[in-house]
């Protein structure tokens, strides 16, 4: 029965997702199922039953006029043929590549978050040399930028996914969809662990403070642990977020209006900014925020409060996105 269901779905894959088409798919599915069950009860084998049902199914062309889907059944009349088809192999290697680039980005961000720790630590070890700390900090930032650039270049070969209109056949779409559903649980666990690490990051520092440890511990090691926990938490967010994004990118390849393109919910829709200015500003938004954060923090050394930049920044981003959402 699974074979028949897939057969039917692949027939309907590129049809518009309208009420008529859904109804047709449902009704035809019912008829196929009835016939299949009867053939089975007559003692036919699985393969025989499937063969008979498919050979007697007919042709969607007959439904074209009734469902108003002429242009979909005869794609040669449309500009559909110049779509880049994505094979299952490509889908698999895209997901693998996206994961690798996600890990690289995540490592970069991890280094960025940790870059202040040598500075803090050295200050309390008493070597007195803040130059060494600064050198270590910039070294880490340099490596991080290396990671960012590499992961960007690494993904370049997939940039056609954004530039060109593509399509993906039913079995691949179905495969990716299954993979995503299977991954959902892991994704949820990783996000939860990440959130918990971030939320609990101040706990070791608080405990050390309570235990009245030396200044090296409370002022030196404690912040390092705090940064490390946040860094690992963010690492999880980025790694798992990239993997999820890989699935969703592939699943939104098919035209949204078709039966094969209805896997990704509309909230995931990419935001397109109407005004050129806004879109230019948004493209450098997060780097600018990072810059503000680092400048403010280093100028005032008020690390305990400067993190609110991130909260404010994400609120502002949400606000701008909602203002510009095209309905």
């Amino acid at each position: 029965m699974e074979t028949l269901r897939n057969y039917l779905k692949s027939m309907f894959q590129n049809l518009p997702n309208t009420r008529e088409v859904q109804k047709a798919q449902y009704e035809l599915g019912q008829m196929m199922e009835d016939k299949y069950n009867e053939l089975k009860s007559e003692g036919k084998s699985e393969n025989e039953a499937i063969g008979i049902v498919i050979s007697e199914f007919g042709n969607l062309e007959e439904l074209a006029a009734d469902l108003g889907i002429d242009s979909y059944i005869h794609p040669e009349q449309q500009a559909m043929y110049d779509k880049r088809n994505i094979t299952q192999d490509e889908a698999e290697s895209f997901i693998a590549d996206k994961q690798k680039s996600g890990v690289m980005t995540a490592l970069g961000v991890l280094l960025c978050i940790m870059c202040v720790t040598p500075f803090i630590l050295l200050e309390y070890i008493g070597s007195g040399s803040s130059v060494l700390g600064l050198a270590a900090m910039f070294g880490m930032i340099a490596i991080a930028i290396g990671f960012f650039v590499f992961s960007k270049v690494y993904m370049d070969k997939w940039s056609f996914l954004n530039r060109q209109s593509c399509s993906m056949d039913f079995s691949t779409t179905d495969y990716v969809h299954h993979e995503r559903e299977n991954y959902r649980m892991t994704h949820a666990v990783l996000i939860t662990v990440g959130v918990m690490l971030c939320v609990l990051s101040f706990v070791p520092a608080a405990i050390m403070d309570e235990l009245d440890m030396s200044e090296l511990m409370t002022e030196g090691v404690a912040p390092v642990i705090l940064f490390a926990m946040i860094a690992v938490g963010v690492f999880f967010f980025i790694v798992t977020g990239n993997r999820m994004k890989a699935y969703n990118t592939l699943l939104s390849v098919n035209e949204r209006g078709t039966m094969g393109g209805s896997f990704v919910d509309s909230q995931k829709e990419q935001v397109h900014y109407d005004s050129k200015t806004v879109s230019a500003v948004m493209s450098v938004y997060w780097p600018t925020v990072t810059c503000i954060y680092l400048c403010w923090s280093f100028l005032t050394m008020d690390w305990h409060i400067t993190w609110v930049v991130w909260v404010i920044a994400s609120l502002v981003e949400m606000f701008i996105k909602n203002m510009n959402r095209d309905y």
Partner: protein
Amino acid sequence: MISISSDVIRGYNDTMILYLLLEKPSYGYEISKQIKSLSEEKYVIKETTLYSAFTRMEKNGYVESFSDEDMSNGKKRTYYRITEAGRAYYQEKCAEWNLTKEVVEKFIEGN
């Protein structure tokens, strides 16, 4: 083996379906099964042909669809029932077929 050409039978799928609906409302697979058995398995209607006939006739007002539970297994199904317009159309098609048959027969060898 000779089989029925779908071009020829196309105009009479509606007639067969309406004939079966005269008796009682019915649903997709039951109708296709009855067509198969009444024609002594000489004609098997394709699923898409059947569904396209249903939607077309519903648009023309010859049949009405309604959702009901199957008596045997309690499954929800779409049933079709014939309307007055459908009955009239059926009578028309019968007359048309008798005429067609009469004319074509005159040109068939061995009768």
